[in-house]
């Protein structure tokens, strides 16, 4: 039956070409794997780099330091020291006055309005808060920090345009020529059209070059028409054309002046962490959203930890192997794959419309997120319970403990680190979840910091979503800043989970 009559077997020849081809295929295949991982890693790095570059400016803000006399008459005429009276005082005009004094040459109404536009509308509130904190300032001269508007802030952060400056060489003379001016210099390094020439406190925008002279229009009137000596004038070049930025040349020159004088300085923007949302980008902060997230997560944790652990204990230890148990298990696996927005629909239809719970409340958000992360926690807890060797339970049963006593006294404590790890990961998931919260109305513009579980609130990811939709470039930066905070929280939570796992990792 077996055919052994086959002639001398063919041996594998050393087919070098084929072997070489096979090894090339091998290297190519391995390269695909490395490339796939590299692409993923590069994407991740680009994402982080993008968020960092966009977001880090959100943690600083530019403030002017203005010397202001805290006028008793305007703030507290009766010297009552009553906070209620101080609160109603006029804090706006002193700032405006002090700021205007820095630019005595600005006289026209339009220019003054433009100048004041550089200040934040919240500057007076800061001043008020400062005086309320320290009423002894009334009647004194104070150095008051004055917040700049978002556009001014963005300009000073260099996010509107790049700025190059060249010192002037030779003497620059200006002669009027109709509407325009003719600038002549006996030095070299002539500017190109679009550049600004600053001299004698004024500024001219170069329109065209003709021979050794420049044709220019006036941006700001100089104090004197006298020629400027070498070094007393300079050329300022903005890399972004005026039309493409929100700060025009005149405003930019004012800000340059403030910066050069050391009046405008960059500081850490604690405001980002201490204030709620605002329509003004420079005043907006994440505290409200952060509180909303914390309240929501408290509800989630309070609900899903006990329920999840109880369910896991039941399924792992007590559930009979019957149809109902099978249905529960299948259900848990399927729930883990239900899109999060569908949980939002559940929250909307059940909790809001049917049970009549308040809209936009952390209570409802927490409920929905609890249902959302429940499968995660149950699955993790079951794995942790399963990892405890049966010998421990058997030992307890052996000394006469009931099944429940064995589980609650011995198995559960040993499984606790695993359960906590799973819970932290579930909470991290809940912290980043956005879609279901949109559905239950936690998406409104809310200025007040929520303090209770039924207050209207947003959450950190929602704040990110809301800000990302706004056109101001400063809000884009705030968005990325909020993302950095969110990622930092997630990083801390995950690191805690990993540490917990490492610390309590047990080899049985």
């Amino acid at each position, binding site marked *: 039956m*077996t*055919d052994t009559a*086959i002639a001398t077997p*063919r041996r*594998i020849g050393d*087919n070098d070409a084929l*072997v070489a081809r096979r090894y090339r295929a091998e290297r190519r295949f391995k390269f695909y794997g490395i490339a796939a991982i590299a692409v993923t890693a590069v994407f991740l790095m680009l994402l982080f780099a993008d968020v960092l570059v966009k977001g880090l400016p959100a943690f600083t803000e530019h403030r002017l330091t203005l010397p202001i006399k805290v006028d008793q008459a305007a703030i507290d005429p009766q010297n009552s020291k009553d906070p209620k009276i101080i609160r109603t005082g006029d804090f706006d005009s002193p700032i405006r006055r002090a700021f205007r004094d820095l630019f005595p040459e600005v006289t026209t109404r339009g220019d003054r309005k433009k100048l004041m536009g550089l200040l934040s509308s919240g500057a007076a509130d800061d001043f008020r808060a400062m005086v309320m904190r320290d009423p002894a300032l009334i009647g004194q001269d104070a150095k008051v920090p004055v917040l700049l508007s978002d556009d001014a802030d963005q300009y000073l952060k260099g996010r509107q345009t790049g700025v190059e400056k060249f010192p002037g060489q030779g003497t620059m003379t200006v002669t009027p020529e109709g509407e325009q001016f003719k600038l002549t210099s006996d030095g070299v390094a002539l500017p190109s059209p679009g550049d600004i020439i600053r001299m004698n406190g004024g500024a001219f925008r170069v329109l065209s070059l003709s021979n050794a002279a420049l044709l220019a229009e006036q941006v700001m009137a100089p104090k004197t028409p006298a020629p400027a000596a070498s070094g007393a004038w300079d050329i300022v070049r903005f890399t972004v054309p005026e039309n493409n930025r929100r700060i025009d040349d005149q405003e930019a020159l004012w800000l340059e002046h403030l910066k050069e004088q050391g009046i405008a300085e960059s500081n850490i923007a604690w405001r980002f962490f201490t204030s709620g949302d605002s329509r003004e980008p420079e005043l907006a902060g994440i505290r409200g959203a952060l509180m909303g997230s914390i309240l929501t997560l408290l509800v989630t944790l309070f609900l899903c930890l006990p329920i999840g652990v109880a369910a896991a204990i039941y399924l792992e230890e007590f559930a009979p192997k019957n149809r109902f148990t099978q249905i529960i298990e299948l259900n848990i696996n399927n729930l883990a794959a239900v899109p999060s927005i569908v949980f939002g629909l559940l929250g909307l239809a059940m909790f809001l419309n049917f049970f009549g719970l308040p809209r936009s409340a952390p209570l409802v958000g927490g409920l929905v997120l609890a249902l959302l992360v429940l499968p995660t926690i149950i699955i993790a807890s079951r794995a942790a319970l399963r990892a405890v060797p049966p010998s421990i339970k058997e030992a307890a049963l052996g000394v006469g403990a009931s099944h429940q006593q064995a589980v609650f006294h011995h198995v559960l404590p040993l499984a606790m680190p695993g359960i906590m790890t799973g819970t932290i990961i579930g909470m991290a998931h809940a912290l980043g979840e956005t879609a279901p919260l949109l559905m239950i109305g936690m998406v409104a513009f809310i200025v007040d910091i929520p303090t209770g579980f039924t207050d209207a609130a947003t959450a950190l990811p929602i704040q990110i979503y809301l800000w990302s939709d706004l056109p101001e470039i400063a809000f884009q930066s705030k968005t990325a800043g909020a993302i950095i905070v969110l990622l930092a929280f997630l990083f801390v939570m995950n690191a805690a989970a990993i540490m917990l796992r490492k610390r309590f990792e047990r080899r049985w």
Partner: protein
Amino acid sequence: MDAMIKTPVAPSAPRIAREKPLKIKARNVDVYYGDKHAINDLSIDIPDSAVSAFIGPSGCGKSTFLRSINRMNDTIPSCRITGNVEIDGRDIYDKTLDVVQLRARIGMVFQKPNPFPKSIYENVAYGPKIHGLAKNKAELEEIVVTSLKKAGLFEEVKDRLDHSGTSLSGGQQQRLCIARAIAVNPEVILMDEPCSALDPIATARIEELIDELRQNFCIVIVTHSMQQAARVSQLTAFFHLGNLVEVGDTDDIFTSPRDKRTQDYITGRFG
């Protein structure tokens, strides 16, 4: 090196080693798994066109040594080997040697039948395909049929070559694995307890097959069963605790073992 190979076989060497040409020569082989010393200073000569059996209690290192012959131990990261293993005088642990081609020359049959989850035809055709042994479809088919015939499986499966290899019975699966191994015409076939997962009837078929294949191949078989070693092999090596205790003609080992441990093992004192 060359001098060693040409050294005439000592008169005390087993008869079979004197009759047949030398195929595999191992000298001073030590194998470590991490800290575990699995094989201790092993030297052996294995003849061509004969069946050599490795016997010994579990964990004695016989499978480990078998896997060292076609460098399957390379797939285990913690494994480390020192010493010399030569096939036809070529050091197989030489850095310049291509392990892929080495394994093509050494077939292997595993303890548990492991047909690929593909058709019977594809299982046997796999080796010839990757090594480019067939110029065309007809030639490939010829190789497949020949191999299945040699493995004594063809008659049973000729009508269902497109069925999955996993649909066969255990004994058939193992013969399929043997067919797969001989399809690339190896010089050596290593068998790691090929019958341990099979029933007695299937085992008898495989043993018959091994005896037939002996004509063309150098066969090395690891077995738990002393009866099997006695039935199929000409040379027997007894391993114990990582040491090669005794090598000799099968008849001699089973009738007059020289070492006390061998004697204890074959009489069933331990193992």
